[in-house]
């Protein structure tokens, strides 16, 4: 992995974590730009299939937050 930036796919609950990611922006927190956020209505929406698919499409990590 050295020298390569990992790619992370995140599934964020619209009501909490997605809002928290917005707040991180409002607070101007700086973090590495290798996240790709997918907004879901609830973390319960995240089917295991999504996680597998994310890995299949080259994600190095998948983060479900809600």
């Amino acid at each position: 992995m050295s020298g390569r930036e990992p790619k992370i796919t995140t599934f964020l609950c619209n009501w909490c974590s997605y809002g928290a990611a917005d707040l991180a922006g409002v607070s101007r927190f700086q973090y590495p730009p290798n996240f790709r956020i997918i907004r879901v209505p609830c973390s319960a929406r995240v089917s295991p299939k999504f996680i597998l698919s994310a890995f299949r499409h080259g994600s190095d990590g998948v983060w479900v937050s809600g």
Partner: protein
Amino acid sequence: MDRKATYKKYAQAIPGAYAIEKTDKAPCRLACPAGLNVQGYVQMVGEGKYKEALKIIMEDLPLPGVLGRICPHGCEDACRRCEVDDPVAIRNLKRLAADQCDPRSIKIDCLPPRDEKVAIIGSGPAGLSAAYHLARKGILSTIYEALPEPGGMLRVGIPDHRLPPGILDQEIELITNLGVELKTSTPLGPDLSVDDLFNEGYEAVYLALGSHKGIELGIPGEKSQGVRQGVDFLREVNLKGKAHVGKRLAIIGGGNVAIDVSRSAVRLGAEEVTILYRRTRAEMPAWEEEIQAAEAEGVKIVYLCAPQEALTEEGHIVGVRCIRMELGEPDSSGRRRPVPIPGSEFDMEIDQLIPAIGQRPDLSALDDIEGLDFTRWGTTEVDPVTYETGRKGLFAGGDLQTGPWVAIGAVAAGREAAESISRYLDGRDMAEGRTPIAADNPQYRPIPEDETPRARAKMPELSLKKRGRNFEEVELGYDTEEGGYEAGRCLNCGYCCECYQCVEACGADAVTLETHAQQSEKLELNVGSIILAPGFQPFDPSEFETYNYANHPSIITAMEFERILSASGPTTGHLIRMSDHKEPKKIAWLQCVGSRDINRCDHGYCSSACCMYAIKEAVIAKEHAGDDLDCAVFFMDIRTHGKDFERYYDDAREKHGIRFVRSRVHTIDPADEGEDVVIKYADEHGNFHEETFDLVVLSVGLETAPDVAALAREMDIELTEGEFCQTSSFQPAATSRKGVYVCGAFTGPKDIPQSVIEASSAATEAGGLLSAARGTLTRSREIPEERTIVGERPRIGVFVCQCGINIGGVVDVGSVRDYAASLPYVEYVADNLYSCSQDTQDAMTQVIKENNLNRIVVAACTPKTHEPLFQETLINAGLNKYLFEMTNIRNQDSWVHKDEPTMATDKAKDLVRMAVAKVALLEPLKEVEVDVDPKALVVGGGISGMVAARSLSAQGYDVCVVEKSDTLGGQALNLFKTWKDEDIQKNLQDLIRAVDADPRIDIRLSTELTKVDGFVGSFATTLRTGEKEDTFEHGVAVIAAGASEFKPDEYRYGEDPRVVTHQELDKRFMEDDPSLRDIKDAVFIQCVGSRDEERPYCSRVCCTHSMESALHLKEMNPDMNVSILYRDIRTYGEREYLYRRARAAGILFFRYSRDQKPQVRTTDHGLEIEIVDSILGRPLLIRADLLSLATAIVPYKDERLAQFFKIPMNADGFFVEAHAKLGPSEFATDGVFLCGMAHYPKPIDESVAQAQAAASRAVTLLARKHIQVSGTIAEVNPMLCSSCGVCVELCPYSAPSFIEEGHFSGKAEINSVLCKGCGLCVASCRSGALNLKGFGTDQIMAMINEI
């Protein structure tokens, strides 16, 4: 902290609201005759923005370099810096701006030229200013100047060493550059009359001839050779560069002309130059710096001396006879009148005499002009506002109209004349809106107390050596460094300096000149009801020396500490001490600062909220700083009486290790070294301690602001002892004045949940009063018909937002836009400066229609705030609003990767690609509309249930009240008096009668619920009364199921009849039991069944109840010994007065701890209670013949009710509201509301308020008639469903169920009203039969594919 004039009003708010702070216009600006925005240009110079400074100056004044040298700067006399040291050198800063930036380079906005011609007579400051301002209005004028050079007095009255002619030339050039024509050597006279000008087609003429004629001395010999007027002398010097000065020259006068003549004469080679002035130096009108310069250059000044006669020989002056003067009484100008001293005559030998005692207008060219009149001082008569003379179209101004005055006054006059002439040409009213408005008692930014004196920057001058016989400019002007320093001395009196840099900077046009000019307005509104919600102000501890708050930076208030903890605060949430940025290791909180204290601050009440907020702050501080942080809370009683607060307190103590020290701190001192603070206190056992802390937080109380109290008095509203609004327990939102309601901290100090409850309560009171008017002042919107897109291939429009520089400053928006155009199905791309602005929205609507787009992506900020807005745009364009996807390239991209623009741009492209992939698969969705049955079910017939029913009925809705017992009234039937001493039974009976008599209320006693079907808007509830069952249909339900008194099994309750509960004692009070009077010793034990392991909550009402009962016993028999055994006394708010009264009445208080509960024994002489007193640390024995137990309030834990309405219950058995702070009277389940003790133990006033609140929340639904249900809900494909039932089991909202009949019987279906669209069932469906509309599996997969 000092903030700028523009600031964010509420740091925490999203989106943030900004404001500009303005007070009255700065005194310098008001003092300037032309009203120049002095503060504005001084600030710009301070920032090195010379061009911007010139722009501000040139709004009013076209001659910045000229006035920057010669203006007598009345502004500086008004400067508030004089209160600190010396005024800001305003004039010199103006000059610096003009020195640093050529005024000719400033672009001056002019309206398009008009055809009308205007003539201006005179090219002095008035004429030039009029021409300039006319040109800006598009009116081009011709200036006629009598002399060969333009500039008037500026040219011929001021010598070059003060005003180099090149500067004047430059600034006249900037005026002629605008198209103004200048004709020199063209005097008004026989060849050119005013009539000629009108005849030539000039529609208006402005007379600005100035005052060029010197006033004669009136002494013998004045006509002889060698005597000439100062103004004539200066004119000659200025036009020809020389004039005859002779050897010995005397000048009569004390003004600037006299000085100018003297300094010019020195330069022209006069050997002896003397100024004769009849008063003393103190009265001399010339500027002090000029006088000094003249003296330095060798001019002699003789004071208290007046000429009597010019001595002549052969028609030529050879001397002057003078007389000594002395000062007498003050004259009309306020200066002391000079009086000749008889016999003091003396002669002076001279060969030139120059009188310079004043000027007046030369009127020789103005004779016989029709309509032009003159005053007795030889000046023109004009209208004081419009400057129009008696003749239409003829205006006059400047020194011709005022007599000799300052140049800036003439500039102002020229500007005003231009305004009049422009209005005259338009045929508009010339006077309207031009009367100057003077601010009475102007408000300014206070001068900071710590403002240190700083010397005024000295103007660099040409050295005396270099001056000699030349006219080189003496004052050299500041350099930029000196200018920056000097401008920095400005105190910014008006806060906003109106430089309008914000207007330039605001790309969204939110800040404009118009919004800048907004004034506070007085509005008159016709209303049927008023709700007062003025809130509180935090107690200010700075005046109380004991707290040392004002003197020590390490002692702060809790409000300040909140800001330090806040991510949007000054330290972005990093816990540091502000004074030295040290991370504190030890923090102390001091409770009851400004509360429960009648000795120091006169607030005898408890502020209710402080214990909880202090604990919260301590816990969060530890979360921020880690476990090493030592937090100590110094308190008298911990009052965590709110729902779940006691648990929070327990956790703070036991899990977070926060120390709680029961002590009132008496001294806070600075540590010997550094910024630390030493607290001295005595512990419970009387031992003294000294402890050093890094930071001390004062838990300041809540108080009513003085202006709020004044407002209440003005409105004739009664206040309590603590200056809170007086209300009754049974109508807690009603003030003493009918139609005026109240909520929040103004009715007493309180926390957020109770404030929110009261807000709804006040709304329901006002709503009941106004229900007849519901829907009368509404407007409805026209919605275009929705376009069908079935069968169309996707035509996607992508809009990328710059959000000003918020996105555009980091992400390369253009490249994201171009990239979007390359994506499949994308037909249209655009980028917008602000996509959310109204004009962009309108443009988007057009673009969608014109390009026939059927899917839209907006890459901008967050959908959480802006998705509804863009969905509206889709609706307006005739598209289904679900054909939309928003992607967040601001909050989650540009803002968080601001140092990595390339990566941020790549991320934005990825996000847009993902959104495009998803949007292509989106389908139009329908929103189901449900009718709302306008009836309510209220569960519970206690005070809460009855009040809720009455409130709903008052708003016009039918209500069914279901009560399981055979009577209305609930727990209140057993209660004696409220804490405000109101008779509960009387009020309760009134309420029961009102409910009974209400035709809209159906009362069902001895009735239970057996089944609840349906959902918000259409419930069907089965009720059973005895054997009979029937169904009630309703749109909403209010749960007011109540709670009851705990019956304990300790303290010999139930074994000894002398041991009773509160309600049992109340019953005896109500019966007026005579045996109570014979009791000698009564004891109360608090927290019986509360705040223990089984019930770790505070029952909230018991402390107050014990105070009431104990006081009542004392009233019945003052000799009775009454004791209260307690853990913490929790008489919150103004209930604290009862505690105070109880102590004053001699009631004894003993504190026990949870580990050492009192022991009760029955003996022959009565009850014996043993308690380990916490102060003495020794057991005490108290005898009693009455023991009242303050037992807990316990909920019914009605699981069936919870399941019927799918409402959650906490571990204690109380129902759980939608949101602890913001939704205390409703459930997360739509259409079901909550009030009373089923929510949490509470006294009658709070139950009534919450019942009204629940009704208020219910009415918001009932009033809608229909409700729309979101389109993003689950759907079942019955062909794939395997009937496994996982979805039915899992769904927290009971939305899935099995189809009972028909072809698909046994398969699952989703109730679209109940479904919240979470997708849990979809993710759990094993057969892939379920899908979530709007977040479909294919749609999310499409996004994942494009990661």
